[in-house]
């Protein structure tokens, strides 16, 4: 009795989640199956359109590439931070988190200044005579990936540092004393043990990139429409709410399947985690 009453404490949160998440989610999914169409008819219709197919796979591609780059950049950074002394560590973590304190609009917009025709990158390359004419760096998939990577890298670093900090220092010494060169010891010990952090970071970055709206809207051009900007167009420009709901449902399914896949891969690499 005393213990079961503790569950009552969850009720306010459950009501909130129920009202604000579960109910709208249900009505969104339900909407895609309503009306005078065959079961999954709206999904079939979506994929019959070549433009939609492109958008779907482009979104997936951009999110995956962003996740891989964020992991590649974040992993060594996080290891460096986790190996720093306690004073340096807090400072470095602060530096990593600092970008999170500004709005994503500002952060995406700053890339327009950097990557534009007369932006810093092109100016520098021209002055160094690496190129003769400005490169087209903006309003394409590259600029979207750059913007998203910059946006979500801190989440990757934070998830990894949290896990790496808790890996015992002695383990590296143990591995080297048993005959493993440092680099081999790193892959035999640090990598498998930091996998849980990599999974959390990858899930955060992937879902963030997949669902991000501001960055692809600001940094992407006509040729780099993604699912989130497509939803916006369906709903707010074409007023096709059924279509928008269909895309939204697909995004949820896509996110869940990729998270499951990441988790399964991680479990295979480190069964203990």
């Amino acid at each position, binding site marked *: 009795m005393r213990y079961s009453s503790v569950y009552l404490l969850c009720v306010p949160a459950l009501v909130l989640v129920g009202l604000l998440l579960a109910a709208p989610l249900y009505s969104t999914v339900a909407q895609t199956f309503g009306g005078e169409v065959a079961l999954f008819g709206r999904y079939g219709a979506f994929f019959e359109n070549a433009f939609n197919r492109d958008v779907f796979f482009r979104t997936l591609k951009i999110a995956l590439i962003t996740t891989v780059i964020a992991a590649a950049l974040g992993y060594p950074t996080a290891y460096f931070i986790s190996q720093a002394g306690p004073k340096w560590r807090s400072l470095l973590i602060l530096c990593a988190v600092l970008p999170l304190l500004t709005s994503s609009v500002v952060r995406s917009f700053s890339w327009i200044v950097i990557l534009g025709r007369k932006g810093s990158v092109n100016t520098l390359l021209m002055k160094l005579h690496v190129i003769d004419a400005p490169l087209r760096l903006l309003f394409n998939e590259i600029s979207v990936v750059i913007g998203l990577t910059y946006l979500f890298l801190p989440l990757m670093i934070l998830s990894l540092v949290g896990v790496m900090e808790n890996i*015992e220092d*002695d*383990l590296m*010494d*143990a*591995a*080297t*004393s*048993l*005959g*493993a*060169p*440092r680099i*081999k*010891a790193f892959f*035999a*010990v640090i990598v*498998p*043990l930091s996998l849980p952090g990599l999974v959390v970071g990858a899930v955060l970055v992937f879902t963030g990139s997949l669902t991000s709206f501001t960055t692809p809207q600001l940094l992407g051009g006509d040729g780099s429409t993604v699912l989130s900007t497509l939803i916006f167009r369906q709903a707010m420009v074409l007023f096709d709410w059924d279509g928008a709901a269909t895309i939204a449902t697909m995004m949820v399914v896509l996110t869940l399947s990729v998270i499951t896949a990441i988790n399964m891969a991680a479990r295979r690499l*480190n*069964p*203990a*985690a």
Partner: protein
Amino acid sequence: MPTLELRKICASYGDNRILTDLDLEVADGDFVSLLGESGCGKTTTLRVVAGFLRADSGGVLLDGEDYTRRPPNRRGFGYVFQSYALFPHLNVFDNVAFGLRQRKVAREEVRRRVDEMLEVVGLAALRDRLSKSLSGGQKQRVALARALVIKPDLLLFDEPLSNLDAKLRVKMRVEIRRLQQEFKITTLYVTHDQEECFSISDKVTVMNDGVIEQFDRPEHIFSQPASPFVARFVGFENFFQLRHQGMSDGRHQLVAADGTKFEAPDRQTIPGGRLLGAVRPEAIALGPAARTGQAGEIAGSIAFRTYLGRGYQYIVQTALGDLTVNGEDQQPFATGDTVTLRVPPDRMVLLGDA
């Protein structure tokens, strides 16, 4: 089997100098302990030997070969950590097999040698368990097996038993000694526990503040400490400033500042400079006030009494300062009683006073 030699090792962490000109030689097959309080540099010494820490200067030699700059993975030493440092993502078998796999030993032989070693440490039944699901004592055995299976030239222990409960500690130290003798591996063992150290070592190195105070057999360290620090460390609690007055009756004749005479056995050599006599609390005889005029007699009064179980311990006020004396169980003296203390000549150790 190899001989380890440390020559004038200086080592530091950042600006913090830990070891200064440390010399040590561990003979072939010996079990040598580094004993000292935390911060004395014993673990630092071990880390320098293992190659985890680069010495600022000096040399590490194994059988005359220079190991000073050799990375730890090419030293072939077994290291047992205080924290055990088992790989939490691997099971018992894979933990023990780690070193052999680094050495590209064939699969079949890895299996044979690891299983054999698990048998030796009594863990065969747990070979497939994840290391994080083991108890402290079992982890310790895995750590031991992991270090032994690579047939190390040198076995290094860093306070391996300090995380175990008292009973298990005694059992494990016997086990460690047995394995060390069975495999005849030269061993360097760090601990702050005197009893543990004395019970398993061939030789003991008492360290203080980055230097070696004494390197000797355990029995010698216990009965003939070489410095006031070592004397205090092994339980000498009473110290007298003395002057040497020559020999008579085959004994050193000594006198304290207030004129009290003492004698000490002549097997000790007299260090130059100021002289300090050291006596254990249990070596001093305690009796009712009665002077006979013999050497070693001190008059005093009981200032404080504590019960030790096997007897009483007294703080006795004397002209030579407060002395700590252990008395017999029956008929304890009371605070304020006047007493006479007798220091037997053969129980006094003479030390140079730094």
